[in-house]
């Protein structure tokens, strides 16, 4: 794990789970797998706290454990999973577009809680939906269950590995930690539950119970103590499926940008047809015949078979090679080259970064070197039609920023510089890694800056929150306009200005984080699929 990644993980853990969990998590990420006592000793925290922190991390699938010889249990942190926390808003929003509010809340609850049983999810979501509905209306459990089943069928949620039930329990002592297993077939199997009920609206008296004695609260939360029918079957969000969806989205929009709407629809249809048949790490989808594609096109699209064939031929001939032709039966068998598509997307990202950082001339040189693979300095000047001095300057700038590398080819065995060829080349994999590292650093900087801005204006923020609370309570009890005006004037105009600026800055920083994460997704997918291929 690079320093940048560790720093980013530390910031994320701290923001989401607090300092103690952050300390334990970062310790594990830094030093690999460790047993419980060693963690407690090294971090100087009490055993109790370490256990609590590990519970939280394990609940959210951020830490896994393994039993080693001699009964020692070692805990290991999953750094890449911690970085996924950046992407939670994207997952939730995607579910909203696919399954509307119910699906969105289901996935949100699963992400916030790590693992939940289906009955718990349904209850929570129904309650939340009921709150937003008009008075008198409630959300039925059945509807929420249906959406849950649909999510499971399309593999967006999956079961967590669980303790295996052993029929013949050997009389020996139980192992220090159980090994969790999950059967492939059972991963998306929804238990047969008859969840009957309606969402409960939270009593309004509870909401302004700020000063109420604690005794009242616990009574509400431990409402029903009946046994849960699906105890032991926990569900989690299937992040890989979401990633597959994002990848498909990226490919479709790339085709739409390059060609037109119709071709992107055709590619989308092809991808939809191969969702179930192709594994997420396959280099290309299963071959689809043109006839099949024609039958599966969305209902609104009425293009003739000939037009479809023309489009497919165009797509297959495109130099980017998103679509390839693998045979002639059935009107032509076509595949989508997923790995090539990801490579093109990563390359396009690199080109775009070079263009925005160094200018369009640099971008031209970069694209030239990409095309020619290895090229000498003199040839760059000639091919790119850029004056020698500028071309040299740009090449060296890109070289110093590690977008390019030099390949030496000696003419003589003594490697004399005057008698050696120096060829410029772009190694896409290493450039992508470099850019990814930079992205991690950027997000860490963005988060730090946002925290700094918030801390600077903490006093002002608290004041404005208090004023809002006062206004809200006064409005609830019915106050006159004049009184409200008076309270509002507690915040002076320059303070208001400051708050506005703060809000704008924080929004900008947050939005930037989300966007950098999109780049991270593309680069990570590319690197992952290239590594798998090798």
């Amino acid at each position: 794990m690079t320093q940048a990644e560790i720093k980013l993980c530390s910031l994320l853990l701290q923001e989401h789970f607090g300092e103690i969990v952050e300390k334990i998590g970062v310790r594990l990420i830094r030093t690999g797998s460790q047993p419980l006592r060693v963690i407690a000793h090294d971090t100087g925290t009490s055993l109790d706290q370490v256990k609590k922190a590990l519970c939280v991390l394990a609940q959210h699938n951020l830490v896994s454990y393994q039993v080693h010889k001699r009964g020692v249990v070692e805990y290991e942190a999953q750094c890449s999973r911690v970085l996924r926390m950046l992407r939670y808003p994207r997952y939730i929003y995607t579910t909203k577009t696919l399954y509307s509010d119910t699906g969105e809340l289901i996935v949100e609850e699963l992400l916030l809680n790590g693992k939940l049983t289906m009955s718990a999810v349904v209850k929570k979501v129904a309650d939340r939906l009921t709150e937003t509905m008009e008075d008198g209306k409630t959300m039925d459990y059945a509807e929420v269950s249906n959406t849950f089943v649909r999510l499971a069928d399309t593999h967006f949620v999956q079961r967590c590995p669980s303790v295996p039930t052993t029929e013949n329990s050997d009389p020996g002592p139980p192992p220090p930690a159980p090994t969790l297993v999950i059967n492939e077939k059972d991963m998306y199997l929804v238990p047969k539950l008859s969840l009957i009920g309606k969402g409960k609206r939270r009593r309004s008296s509870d909401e302004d119970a700020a000063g109420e004695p604690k005794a009242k609260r616990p009574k509400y939360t431990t409402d029903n103590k009946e046994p849960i029918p699906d105890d032991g079957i926990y569900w989690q969000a299937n992040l890989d499926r979401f990633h597959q969806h994002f990848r498909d989205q990226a490919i479709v929009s790339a085709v739409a940008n390059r060609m037109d709407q119709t071709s992107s629809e055709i590619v989308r249809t092809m991808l939809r047809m191969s969702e179930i048949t192709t594994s997420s790490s396959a280099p290309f989808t299963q071959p689809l015949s043109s006839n099949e594609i024609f039958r599966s096109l969305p209902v609104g699209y009425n293009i003739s078979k000939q037009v479809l064939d023309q489009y497919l031929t165009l797509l297959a001939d495109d130099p980017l090679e998103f679509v390839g032709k693998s045979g002639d039966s059935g009107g032509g068998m076509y595949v989508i080259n997923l790995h090539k598509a990801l490579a093109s997307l990563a390359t396009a990202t690199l080109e775009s970064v070079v263009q925005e950082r160094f200018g369009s001339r640099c971008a031209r040189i970069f694209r030239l070197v990409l095309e020619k693979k290895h090229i000498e300095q003199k040839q760059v000047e000639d091919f790119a039609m850029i004056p020698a001095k500028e071309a040299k300057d740009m090449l060296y700038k890109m070289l110093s920023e590690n977008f390019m590398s030099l390949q030496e080819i000696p003419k003589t065995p003594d490697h004399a510089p005057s008698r050696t060829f120096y060829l410029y080349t772009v190694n896409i994999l290493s450039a992508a890694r470099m850019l990814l590292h930079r992205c991690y650093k950027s997000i860490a900087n963005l988060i730090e800056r946002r925290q700094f801005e918030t801390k600077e204006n903490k006093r002002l923020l608290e004041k404005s929150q208090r004023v809002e609370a006062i206004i809200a309570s006064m409005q609830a009890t019915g106050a006159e306009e004049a009184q409200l005006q008076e309270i509002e004037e507690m915040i002076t105009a320059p303070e208001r200005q400051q708050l506005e600026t703060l809000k704008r800055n924080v929004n900008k920083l947050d939005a930037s984080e989300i966007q950098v994460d999109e780049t991270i997704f593309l680069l990570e997918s590319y690197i992952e699929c290239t590594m798998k291929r090798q």
Partner: protein
Amino acid sequence: MAGNKGRGRAAYTFNIEAVGFSKGEKLPDVVLKPPPLFPDTDYKPVPLKTGEGEEYMLALKQELRETMKRMPYFIETPEERQDIERYSKRYMKVYKEEWIPAGPKPKKAKDAGKGTPLTNTEDVLKKMEELEKRGDGEKSDEENEEKEGSKEKSKEGDDDDDDDAAEQEEYDEEEQEEENDYINSYFEDGDDFGADSDDNMDEATY
């Protein structure tokens, strides 16, 4: 490193043309300090994407941040005890659910743990005295092994977790079962071990 510095200008070992400087041209200044921390860029960054989706995700992100702080998984750092308990603190306590991972909680251990706080402290005191005599090193290693096994047994499971009391109970119990020559019950409560003066030691201490 004599070189040829004495005989006129330095001669390069390679063809200077290849790097891009013509013969006799003034070389650029030597860089004496690191580049500035925030250099001016010629090209300003492209504005952020805007749209319904992006705005929704932004609102979601900020909401999630707030929600996570209120969840039971957010473990607050225990504040240091202040000398004077502030009056307002009582009314600013935020209510948070206590989250204990799902799993069977053995009732017996909990009661047993609550019932013997006295012996626990007594044992701890005895242990401290023994430690003073023997030194830390030898004990920790062997204890680690046995404690690992039993601790994990009691702690782990499919999101199992025994109560803290039970853990404390087992923890202390394990500590007491040391392989040493001292019988735990040998010392009565109230005996000061080694605190008596050793001036007139006619009889041995038991």
